[in-house]
């Protein structure tokens, strides 16, 4: 009898001493960042291992500790599958004490993880997915869409190319949600700027041969061929457009092109193409300094320059850690409030503001790919044609129609 009493007393004491999660300023005595990205698929060169490296650099630069507790980074391959992404995130939040999930290149995976994170009150920082609805009707309270979205890409390239004289357009579009939404967004911008859309053709994702579609684009006689696709599809489109003598008679407009794509194509094939980017390594001293550290990092085996996804991720994680430091806890509510209240000022964004809808509004850049003769040193690929100020580059909070932002 006595023994049972003693044991139950001990159990009671233990229960009372074990603190509830919320009461601890830093949950589980560690701030854990989970990088959920595409390690082996279409997006692995523009995110993948480089994204993990960017996060590790951000943590190292922060000193490896925040509010006196260590910062840990783990990573996983979402394989571009929504179910794998959401299951991994659920496991991270439930069993692995992950406080913030980042990257999620590919909109499908991002939109699968966001509701899980919202339910578990953990933060998601997205760099890589593009769908505009992420901070529109699908917005969640603990999410930040950091680097770019379809609206910004469409708007930058669409409007500027029309203004530069490319009035008639034909779209070569990847036949899935991302491609269609990118085409729709761009077509609207082109029309609003006084241009005309002559037609479009939808191709299945990962087609290797684009000559049929390009012949249709050629037959349309449009001045500009807008490529509403990504990754290997864009690369093969550009390559074959040159082969069939379509460029330079007709101009290509890349709606989602990364520096890794241009590097892989070579300037001779990609030259003259317009694109919109959130980051270019050779913008100024600050970007150069950071990008060179990234390039020469021992973990960066291919010595590649960072893409906008990777640069944005570094900035996003640093902004998060600063917020944790400022509020002294890693609880989602105060941290996300602090992040939204603080403007972002670093090499990636100057005066970037995160809206109540979770969209990070910052300057974007319209760039044109240089001809080989104009490229003076390795990775000298872009001529920055124009800086697009944040207010023009991204949709307003009202236009996004995020239910969270409307209530306030």
């Amino acid at each position: 009898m006595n023994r049972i009493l003693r044991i139950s007393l001990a159990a009671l004491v233990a229960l009372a001493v074990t603190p509830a999660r919320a009461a601890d300023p830093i949950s589980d005595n560690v701030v854990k960042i989970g990088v959920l990205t595409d390690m082996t698929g279409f997006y692995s060169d523009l995110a993948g291992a480089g994204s993990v490296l960017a996060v590790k650099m951000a943590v190292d630069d922060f000193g490896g500790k925040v509010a006196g507790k260590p910062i840990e980074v783990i990573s996983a391959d979402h394989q571009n599958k929504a179910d794998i992404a959401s299951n991994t995130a659920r496991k991270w939040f439930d069993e692995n004490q992950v406080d913030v999930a980042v990257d999620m290149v590919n909109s499908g995976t991002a939109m699968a993880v966001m509701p899980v994170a919202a339910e578990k009150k953990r933060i998601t920082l997205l760099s890589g997915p593009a769908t505009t609805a992420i901070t529109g009707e699908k917005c969640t309270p603990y999410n930040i869409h950091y680097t770019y979205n379809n609206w910004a890409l469409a708007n930058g390239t669409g409007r500027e190319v029309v203004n530069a004289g490319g009035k008639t357009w034909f779209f070569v579009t990847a036949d899935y949600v991302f491609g269609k939404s990118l085409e729709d967004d761009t077509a609207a911008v082109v029309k609003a700027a006084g241009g005309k859309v002559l037609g479009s053709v939808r191709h299945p994702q990962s087609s290797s041969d684009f000559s049929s579609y390009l012949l249709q684009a050629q037959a349309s006689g449009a001045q500009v061929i807008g490529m509403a696709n990504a990754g290997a599809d864009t690369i093969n489109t550009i390559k074959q457009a040159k082969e069939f003598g379509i460029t330079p008679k007709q101009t290509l407009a890349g709606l989602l092109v990364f520096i890794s794509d241009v590097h892989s194509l070579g300037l001779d094939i990609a030259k003259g193409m317009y694109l919109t980017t959130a980051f270019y390594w050779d913008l100024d001293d600050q970007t150069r300094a950071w990008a060179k550290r990234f390039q020469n990092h021992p973990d960066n085996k291919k010595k590649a320059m960072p893409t906008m996804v990777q640069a944005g991720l570094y900035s996003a994680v640093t902004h998060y850690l600063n917020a944790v430091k400022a509020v002294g806890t890693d609880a989602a509510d105060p941290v996300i409030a602090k992040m939204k209240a603080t403007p972002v000022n670093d090499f990636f964004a100057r005066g970037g503001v995160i809206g109540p809808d979770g969209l990070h509004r910052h300057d974007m850049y319209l760039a044109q790919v240089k001809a080989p003769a104009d490229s003076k040193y390795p990775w000298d690929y872009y001529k920055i044609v124009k800086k697009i100020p944040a207010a023009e580059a991204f949709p307003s909070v009202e236009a996004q129609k995020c239910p969270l932002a409307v209530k306030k």
Partner: protein
Amino acid sequence: MQALFGQLLVGLINGSFYALLSLGLAIIFGLLNVVNFAHGALYMTGAFVAWMGLQYLGIPYWAALLLSPLAVGLLGAVIERTMLRRLYALDHLYGLLLTFGLTLIIEGLFHHQFGNSGNGYPVPELLQGGSNLGFMFLPRYRAWVVVVSIAVCILSWFVIERTRLGAYLRAGTENPRLLQAFGVNVPMMLTLTYGFGVALAGFAGVMAAPIYQVSPAMGSNLIIVVFAVVVIGGMGSIFGSIVTGLGLGLVEGLTKYLYPPAASTVVFVIMALVLLVRPAGLFGRQR
């Protein structure tokens, strides 16, 4: 009408790739009874060998056209000698599993080394440019692909169906023991057959390098369609795979023009229909 001609010609170009790849598969299946899932990976290897040769050793396209299939054929011979040989007595499924595993390993290695975006391979100088046919601009390189592929296909068909060596090969699959009794080195012949089949894949890889980005995924994008071609043509029918390859290229080209979203499925719809009506394929014999 003009646009239609253009699409048909483009279809023919793609069809000649299908023919070249499915030919190798058909030879390997017809003579060795192995479903060679590694075909796509070896096609990719052929393209990469050409690219690496140019990049690191300065080997030009024309030499690569010979050296790269040789290298891939040699790799194939090693695979046959060390692994595939042990599976001949077992069910087809084991050969399929082995070659599928090899595909994952080969693609994984290239992915690890070269990343995912791939590398560009320049069109050889002699074949740059093109001519205007009135209804479309035909790049010279594409014309070259069609001519060479068809020539290689016909040559392979001739060797297997009309020469003494081909007769030995066919006899070796029907009754290897009897043939061996006549003093023919059957195991060696099987090694050479597999080597030749995959060398064709390597050859197609070099042909493809200047058109598509040389990337680790280039084989897996194509291989499923090529398998459908072999099934439609009749597993193991060499003539069937050549004709079907070209024909399906044309059908696909037509679909891309009439209803693009169906372009990736039309081949499989045809496959389902053919299997319903003729389970052995268009040119296949019931075994």
